[in-house]
């Protein structure tokens, strides 16, 4: 292979096979809204959520927070029943969601 030769080269990647989803409109204030917690059982969410809950309630007295423990788990083994969540979020009147923990 000569180092002087010129090569016309092709793109090695592939088309991105997805559509963009618009994100939900954010509220101006938390007043009168319900925040729901969803936890996957990993990386100390059992400590993170109570801290956030307490501080958010102090800062925004009008907000209601539904803890992750109120969402369906599979038996008593600490992992969520993700499939049922869309319905449950509706049933519980969730306006916003905090999800954890990615690590």
């Amino acid at each position, binding site marked *: 292979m*000569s*180092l*002087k*030769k*010129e*090569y*016309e*080269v*092709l*793109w*090695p*990647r*592939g*088309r*991105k*096979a*997805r*559509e*963009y*989803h618009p*994100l*939900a*409109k*954010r*509220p*101006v204030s*938390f007043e009168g809204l319900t*925040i729901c917690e969803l936890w*996957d*059982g*990993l*990386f*100390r*969410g*059992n*400590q*993170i959520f109570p*801290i*956030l809950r307490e*501080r*958010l309630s102090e*800062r925004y007295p009008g907000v209601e927070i539904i803890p992750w423990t109120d969402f369906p788990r*599979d*038996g008593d*083994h*600490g*992992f969520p029943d993700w499939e049922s969540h*869309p319905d449950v*979020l*509706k049933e519980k009147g*969730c*306006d*916003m*969601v*905090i*999800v*954890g*923990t*990615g*690590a």
Partner: protein
Amino acid sequence: MGLPSASLVTEGFIAQGQMTAEGSGMPNLPLAAISGHTDIYNDEEFQNVIETVTLDETIKALTTQPEDIKPVHEPGPRDIVSKGTFEEVNQYFYENKWQEGIPIVPPTMEKVEKFLKFTTRAADEVLGELLPDRREATIWNIAVNGVMAGCRPEYMPVLIAIAEVLADPRYGVEHSSNTPGAEELITINGPIIKELEFNYTQGALRVGFQANTSIGRFVRLYLRNVAGFLPHETDKGTFGNTWRVVLAENEDFLASIGWKPTSFYQGFKEGDNVVTIARYTSGGVLVSVFGDTADKVLPCLGDGLVRHIGWELIFTTGLPANPGFARTQRPHLILSPCIAEVIAKSGYSKKDVQRYLYENARIPAWRFEELLSWMSPEKIDLCQLVDAGIAPKQFCESNDPSRMVPIVCSSDDFLITVSGDPLRNNAYAFTSNGIFGYTTSKKIELPPNWKELLREARVR
């Protein structure tokens, strides 16, 4: 659902979170950072991090409207993206993160077309979408990356089968960047081993043989360019490895001792050309396996497997928070031919070796539980995992902490391959990364005029 959300993500995973969100069609999804990593703080330090960093980021994510997405223009598959000398092309590819730091073969139209001659499938055929970038795996981009990796055009049927594994949801390509930094190993079976001149004797797993080496490199390039795994971005391996050279089984030797190929135990017929891919974390060589009968050799092999497995036992029984991990541990034992011969002389088949290992490669339950507990916030009890229906019942045959339990759920979970130096009594034990790169096989489909094409290709 259409609800505002804040996703809690540790600092080191923000880039991966962003890329994963983009692959899911939400590149502007707001993330709330947790500084450092959750596992290293005491309670006081952790509370401070959540209150001083995560709280404000959570509020911002829930109340600040993310900017709209701006469409990004990308080249089409047949677009010429650069023109230049070998060095200029390589610099361009390096700057665009399309090569791994060593030169690629420039993927020109002429070279790609040579690869396409080795398949009857349409160049634009989509085999699947590879996460996290969710890019289409196509016959075309298989050929482009095959050229870049230094493959020969006649390797194309193997490359297609490999991409089919990566596109198979059972394999779980999206986990190819998890923090243990496991690396893929391709095992190949069938007449194609000789047809493509794979090394299957001394120096197995060593670079130096074009088919083994360049096809191993192809996988890493394909994961980079099509799946989208990049260090410092989406590839979160704490420690990584260079790609693994392809392992080819010594099928002549297998025939001489009456053993079946690895692919047979993966559900294929003897004589089929098959690739098997799995991701392996730890592994190591078992040296000078001394003995002239199976009874003398097998205890050493069982002990080697037990010594090389540790945290990966989470893929045997699962954890309370991760039941899906269970039953996905598949250790891979590579035997040099002379060890296999000793075992076969004692009347053992591969199946018998699997049974032996299941019965004898065991550890005390207390030790198993200790290893799992180091991976979990709570103490793990194997009997509780069994009661919960997560682990199979053999892990709780009594409450005696000294009872011996297996390292896999079934004898079939052991993969055994014969390769390496025929005249040296060494073996190699790989521990699998379970569900995160689950052992998956595909048949290599050859074009109808394969023999003729191969003959032409060999006129070098």
